[in-house]
């Protein structure tokens, strides 16, 4: 019986894939198999949740080598008869998706936000045109690769009895060597988990104002984020704080946007917030139409006033 094969380098994302795989398997009467690579701990966890788990244990295989990983996954998909491969749409998963798709002759969709099952097959929902639109798309090849966005599905609960087996794959001589893995400069910040975000846009003119912004965020239990140019052009923040298509796509309870104009690639990262507050000196800014509360004012006045009003 053809089945769904799941793989992520990241254990919590693998658990989310298992949830999605169960929805698909139930709908299409397929089996589910989980794959792990040099991660026995992840294999144990998946098996404990009820997944039939296959372990590749091979010191010559490093997740850093996408070519080798794609080859290993292709062999696994063929051996285990996985015609739908679910990957995580984190950086490793996305990079792997295209290479694996090419090898398997599969159609592939990445950054998929949800999958609808139905009589016409799997409908995948994802952003198109930089997020200006949301598309519903179907992969029409027999083999399908779907990379699911982080947090698209909740982590799997325990269901049924899993199993653990080893799987052998052939690894070819690599043209790529991992020399060093190091901690990332910058901070560990989880924008996607934040309930309140205070977002700095290009309308915040002076870097000194960031201290006040941090105080405001702290006073309301929020986390500071930014639009892409504020990180990549001005270098005020690291890339881990970027909201948008090529940054984080967040769904906080409240987003306070300071000096954001509302370019589509930014807006896609915040438009699913429950409440959006925008402070902007431009009364015609696109973001105002996408906000629940709008304050048209000079941020040079608003930021200190906001801080003072919060009693800080």
């Amino acid at each position: 019986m053809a089945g769904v094969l799941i793989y992520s380098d990241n254990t919590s994302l693998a658990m989310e894939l298992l949830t999605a795989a169960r929805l698909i398997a139930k709908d299409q009467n397929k089996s589910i198999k989980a794959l792990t690579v040099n991660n026995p701990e992840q294999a144990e966890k998946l098996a404990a949740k009820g997944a039939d788990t296959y372990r590749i244990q091979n010191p010559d295989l490093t997740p850093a080598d996408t070519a080798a990983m794609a080859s290993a996954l292709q062999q696994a998909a063929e051996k285990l008869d996985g015609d739908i491969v679910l990957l995580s749409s984190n950086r490793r998963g996305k990079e792997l998706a295209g290479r694996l798709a090419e090898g398997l002759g599969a159609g592939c969709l990445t950054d998929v936000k949800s999958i609808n099952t139905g009589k016409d097959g799997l409908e995948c929902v994802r952003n198109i045109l930089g997020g200006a639109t949301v598309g519903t798309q179907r992969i029409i090849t027999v083999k399908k690769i779907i990379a699911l966005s982080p947090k698209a599905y909740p982590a799997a609960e325990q269901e049924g009895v899993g199993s653990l087996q080893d799987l052998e794959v052939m690894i070819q001589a690599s043209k790529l060597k991992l020399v060093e893995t190091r901690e990332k400069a910058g901070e560990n910040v989880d924008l996607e988990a934040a309930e309140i975000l205070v977002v700095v846009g290009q309308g915040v003119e002076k870097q000194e104002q960031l201290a006040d912004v941090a105080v405001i965020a702290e006073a309301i239990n929020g986390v500071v984020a930014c639009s892409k140019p504020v990180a990549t052009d001005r270098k005020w923040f690291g890339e881990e704080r970027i909201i948008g298509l090529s940054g984080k796509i967040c769904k906080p309870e409240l987003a306070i946007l300071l000096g954001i104009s509302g370019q589509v690639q930014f807006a896609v990262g915040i438009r699913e917030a429950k409440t959006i507050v925008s402070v902007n000196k431009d009364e015609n800014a696109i973001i105002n139409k996408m906000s629940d509360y709008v304050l048209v004012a000079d941020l040079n006045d608003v930021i200190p006033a906001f801080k003072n009003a919060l009693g800080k």
Partner: protein
Amino acid sequence: MNIVVAMKQIPELQQIRIRDREPVLDDVPYTFGKIDKNALEAGLQLKEAAGGKLIVVSVGTEALEDTIKEALAAGADEACLIMDNKLENIESATSARLIAEAVGTIDDVGIILFGEGSGDNYSGQVGSRVAAILGLPQAGYVKNITLNGNQATITRAMEDCEEVLEATLPVVASVLADINTPTIPSVTQILKAGKKPKEILELKIDKTGQIETISNLAPETQRRQIEVKDVAELIKAIEAEGISRR
């Protein structure tokens, strides 16, 4: 050794209007994706250090003839184009096939650069697919590259760590936006761009699709758009949403 940068012609996203939730693309000018411009800049810096030519490969409609000037003005030496109005809205797999074929016509390619994702679809598949077709090693999310003989030392950023890789050339690399800040071309560069060589390839176009788009609509936004007049009102509004101060 030559450097190839693959760039995607995309509609100027800010100029797309939405009518009845449908995107209206008529008269929207084309440009290249922003991250593709970072890839071009990375290519220029490598060329400066290692020599050779920088060739931009692009696949798109006839409008590419004009769009490509942007890349040539920014410093590319040559363009290698596959142009056909049938190539509007092609899938990643088609695009990858054509780019790989075009790269195959170029001598002594050391590195093929992409942006980490296109400006419109941001699917991130084409670089990986091209690497697969050409059987080359690849590295994504790259923030630094140095070339040393037939080796590239590549630093890339994952979500939680950075990796330093050594790859034997040729290699496919897709870069992050924060790898550099693209320089703005001077007037002289813009004027010279029209005279730079452009090779137009006639390749067989097979648009056999793998993906079917069922719908493509702007999300429905129903926001309250309540104007508040000062910070005090703003804070009252936030508190009304159940957010309390620490």
